[in-house]
């Protein structure tokens, strides 16, 4: 059995007929007010149908082309940003290499210039000073020289030291 709301909706839509229509209108307390409400509802429905009708795009191909173009551009931007994420770009690598080479050359020149070609080799032993007891060895003399062979032995040569007995050679 239909409820009042279902019968009311069907009456507004003009879908009641015959005995059912007669009984429903008889159940209404103010038929004139209901008729006025029905007219208003029909007008409102007609107005909404008119205003909310689908508007057809008259330039849909151009609109579609714009969307595709935008999608393609977004894709390119994303791949470009992915490619530049590393710090070692080619120009930076080139500049870093050139800077390192320049520093190496400068350092080498500075360090090599600290050792002029004519300066004696730093690999030789040097005697800074020497002394013997003048009371025990009044005639002692000291010479310093370097051996001529490959060993580059530095020799401190003493003369005139007091001769000692052979016993002193003991271990």
């Amino acid at each position, binding site marked *: 059995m239909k409820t009042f709301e279902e019968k009311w909706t069907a009456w507004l839509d003009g879908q009641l007929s015959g005995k059912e229509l007669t009984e429903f209108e008889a159940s209404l307390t103010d038929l004139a007010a209901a008729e006025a409400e029905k007219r208003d509802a029909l007008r409102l429905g007609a107005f909404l149908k008119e205003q909310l009708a689908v508007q057809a795009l008259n330039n849909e191909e151009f609109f579609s082309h714009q969307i595709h173009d935008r999608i393609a551009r977004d894709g390119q931007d994303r791949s470009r940003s992915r490619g530049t994420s590393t710090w070692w770009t080619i120009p930076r690598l080139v500049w870093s290499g050139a800077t390192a080479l320049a520093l190496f050359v400068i350092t080498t020149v500075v360090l090599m210039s600290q050792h002029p070609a004519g300066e004696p080799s*730093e690999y030789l032993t040097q005697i800074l000073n020497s002394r013997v007891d003048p009371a025990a060895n009044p005639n002692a003399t000291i010479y310093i020289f370097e051996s001529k062979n490959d060993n*580059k032995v530095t020799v401190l040569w*003493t003369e005139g030291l007091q001769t000692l007995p052979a016993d002193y050679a*003991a271990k």
Partner: protein
Amino acid sequence: MQLRPLLLAVFLLLAMSAASAHAAHVVWSGLVIAENVPQPTPIPPELTKLEQTLKELFGYNQFELIGQSSKTLKTGAEDWLANSKYFGLHVDARGENDAGYTLNLKLYKEKDVLLETDANLSKSSPLVIKGPQVGSGQLLLVLVVKDDEVVHRRRHAEPANPITAGWHRLQRMIHRVLP
């Protein structure tokens, strides 16, 4: 982010350079009696490299060790004694320099100082001191810094490579900055 491994590698290289500059050396000091004898004994192994030089310089055919000492220098400020029965060689290291070690040497005959000298002992140039005549022989004092033999021979075989010398100088500079 990729800069970090590079910086780490550079730091490790510098640290290794500083560490290698810190490498300890052994100073060998010996009291030697040089003599001419009919049947000379073989020269002690510590003097093998110097045999020809010693023979040419002093004209003896036998070199006998009567006292010796090997000291590993870590700070360059150690001192030690090489003794025989009557002689003593006191070596007092007073620091490391570009060429080697600064040493103060005192030759004692029992309690008397026969000879005193200050020297910069190079890592690649031995020091030989002619001491007093002892009987028919001669007392010699020999000091050698025992270094890497391969490097040692190469330095003598060819002139010093300026780049290598510069590199060693750079190592010493780093060593001074990062002791």
